[in-house]
């Protein structure tokens, strides 16, 4: 009986985006399909909230035999997917409406956009709940394909170039991840002959019997593979292109949650590898990539001229921080990393939405052409400012807390060189990012502009995210604290909370 309920839970969770995509295809009317997508996204959000509260009390749910496995770690990712999916659907209605009005997209493209949006949500919902690591790989690859379609919605040269680079680099990257997955699978079928050799739960269970050398090679492949998709430097080169050329709501999802989904893959294998050969090997690699990522992000933000590319590099930095937290280890560092996943999923979409509105108003992405946002669009300006301050880790906003936890765990675990380097890079990023941001927000607009916001539906999603950013800086709800704590114990404690 119990398993029937959990089967239904998973089924109903995955149903709305499928039905939504179908309805969009059939109905085709611009107004209706926008509303349908908002409905599917809110249905997903409600179900995920229910599921998460269930996970907080019961810790794990399995469904359809052992195909789906939801634990606290999956719940954190599901939470970020559903929240960002919901606000992005809200924002899409206004944004795509305006793109339609100014002739950038036509009816056919709008239908394609909403189809893609629904399927994109579906694939990102499956990634965190798939127990079978092969299925996880297939869905991560599927997220690439769908998001490529969403990026190439526009016929612009830049969008086509970005889509091409993204498709090639991400696919090649993920082929490394597949090799890594097959290596882990091979290690597992050599260690035992149980039925679920491809399942994550099975791997963690038997990890002690894996051949250590094989595990090391496998983890390197996994790190390169999913690291490419998660935007860790030096495999991040597709990221700024794709994130800056996609339609704004898609950029928000790509940056805010798709990176998290890919990083989730690394975390799962990090747990297996730690259970097998101890955490030192994989942690060391994670720390190295983290320092490189944060350094490259700092340098790129320093020289940046384009608003959305700057935000994209800030995502590289945040992924680096998550990787750093996981690498430093200890309950404190891992807690910080998971919190960073959540915080990133709130702050980054906020910034992308704001920059999308600014972009539509100023019809420019170059930061030198954008001045005086706060005079032209006061509400968006304030939200943009708060989001930016949160992003660089200014107290009292949410990112400060997680960054602080990660860095202090670095000193605690004795990684002085890595931590000091990262602090140096973060200080550079802080100063440069703020300078770019303040130049855009204050001052006088270069030309005479009509004052006015981009519409209520553009403001509401940002306001939701902004209130989350502010609230989470001051206090985190008890349920979420338990969830993050459980997720951290899964990582530090060898797989099971």
């Amino acid at each position, binding site marked *: 009986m119990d398993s029937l309920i959990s089967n239904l839970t998973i089924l109903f969770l995955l149903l709305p985006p499928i039905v939504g995509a179908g309805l969009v295809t059939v109905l085709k009317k611009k107004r209706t399909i926008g509303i349908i997508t908002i409905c599917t996204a809110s249905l997903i959000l409600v179900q995920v909230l229910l599921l998460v509260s269930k996970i907080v009390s019961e810790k794990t749910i399995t469904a359809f035999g052992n195909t789906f496995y939801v634990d606290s770690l999956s719940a954190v990712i599901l939470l970020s997917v559903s929240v960002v999916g919901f606000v992005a659907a809200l924002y899409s209605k206004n944004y795509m409406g305006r793109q339609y009005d100014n002739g950038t997209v036509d009816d056919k493209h709008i239908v394609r956009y909403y189809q893609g949006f629904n399927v994109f949500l579906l694939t990102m919902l499956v990634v965190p709940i798939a127990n079978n690591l092969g299925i996880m790989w297939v869905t991560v690859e599927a997220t690439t394909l769908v998001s490529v379609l969403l990026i190439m919605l526009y016929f612009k040269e830049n969008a*086509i*170039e970005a889509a091409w680079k993204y498709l090639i680099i991400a696919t090649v990257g993920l082929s490394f991840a*597949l090799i890594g997955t097959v290596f882990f699978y091979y290690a597992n079928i050599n260690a035992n002959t149980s039925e679920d050799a491809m399942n994550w739960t099975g791997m963690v269970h038997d990890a002690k019997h894996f051949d250590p050398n094989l595990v090391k090679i496998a983890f390197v492949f996994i790190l390169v593979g999913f690291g490419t998709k998660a935007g860790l430097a030096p495999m991040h080169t597709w990221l700024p292109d794709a994130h800056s050329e996609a339609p704004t709501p898609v950029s928000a999802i790509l940056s805010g949650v798709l990176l998290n989904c890919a990083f989730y893959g690394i975390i799962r294998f990090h747990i297996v590898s730690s259970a097998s050969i101890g955490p030192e090997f994989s942690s060391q690699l994670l720390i190295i990539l983290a320092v490189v990522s944060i350094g490259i992000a700092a340098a790129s933000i320093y020289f940046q*001229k384009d608003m959305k590319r700057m935000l994209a590099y800030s995502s590289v930095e945040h992924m680096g921080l998550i990787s750093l937290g996981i690498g430093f280890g200890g309950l404190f560092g891992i807690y910080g990393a998971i919190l960073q996943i959540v915080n990133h999923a709130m702050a980054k979409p906020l910034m992308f939405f704001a920059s999308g509105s600014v972009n539509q108003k100023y019809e420019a992405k170059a930061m030198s052409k954008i001045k005086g946002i706060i005079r032209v669009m006061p509400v968006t300006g304030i939200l943009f400012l708060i989001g930016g301050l949160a992003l660089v880790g200014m107290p009292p906003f949410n990112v400060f807390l997680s960054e602080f936890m990660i860095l202090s765990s670095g000193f605690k675990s004795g990684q002085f060189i890595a931590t000091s380097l990262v602090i140096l890079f973060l200080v550079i990023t802080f100063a440069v990012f703020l300078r770019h941001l303040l130049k855009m927000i204050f001052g006088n607009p270069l030309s005479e502009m009509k004052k006015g916001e981009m519409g209520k539906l553009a403001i509401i999603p940002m306001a939701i995210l902004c209130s989350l950013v502010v609230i989470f800086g001051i206090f985190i709800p008890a349920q979420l604290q338990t969830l993050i704590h459980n997720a951290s114990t899964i990582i530090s404690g060898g797989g099971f909370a």
Partner: protein
Amino acid sequence: METMQFDVLTISGAVLLIATFGIVATRGFMDWLNAYRYQSIVLSGVTAIIGYVTGIWEIYIAAGLTLVIKSIIIPKVLTYVTRKLEIEFKLETNPYVSIRASVIISALLVALSYFLIQQIPFKSDQIVNAYLPVSMAQFFIGLFVLVNRRTVLSQVVGLLIIENGLFLFAMALTHGVSLLIEVGIFVDILVGILISSILLFRISRTFDSLDVGKLENLRDD
């Protein structure tokens, strides 16, 4: 019997490598497609051999899928989408490394993969010994084709070689991950190829070229 089986394994592995070299050594897109088709047919045969040796029936299905999707559908799709492209777009006239040097590098890559596979502690097994180095070599050569060639079309071909290498790798090492996942992987490839052919077409129209060097509008400076 044992030695004959061994011969079949070695020879089929060698034939796969020859097909891969066929792509490295030619300049025209149609030649690549033919070599790819040939490679996929051999790959499907190799898969069937693995199925025969291990006695797992699911592998025969994978072999059938390989034959249908990779040696019939994908080449057809690619021929169809590129039929309107001008002939000059379909020729690799100016690779970063010359064709002759490419062949030598590919040969070195083959040697490298044999060397690497020896370093990894695998259980000794005929199939692993015969095919794993070949699959690694395909993977590396695919990567090399991807970065060395300048036309967008050859990047697609590079991806296809990589993918064949991956497939053989999974087959040889673990005798196939479960069928469901293999179908998933096949669908991913097929959709990926469809998307890339749409993109190909758009690139040729928007940029009036298929040279990867032209794709450099997006920069940080």
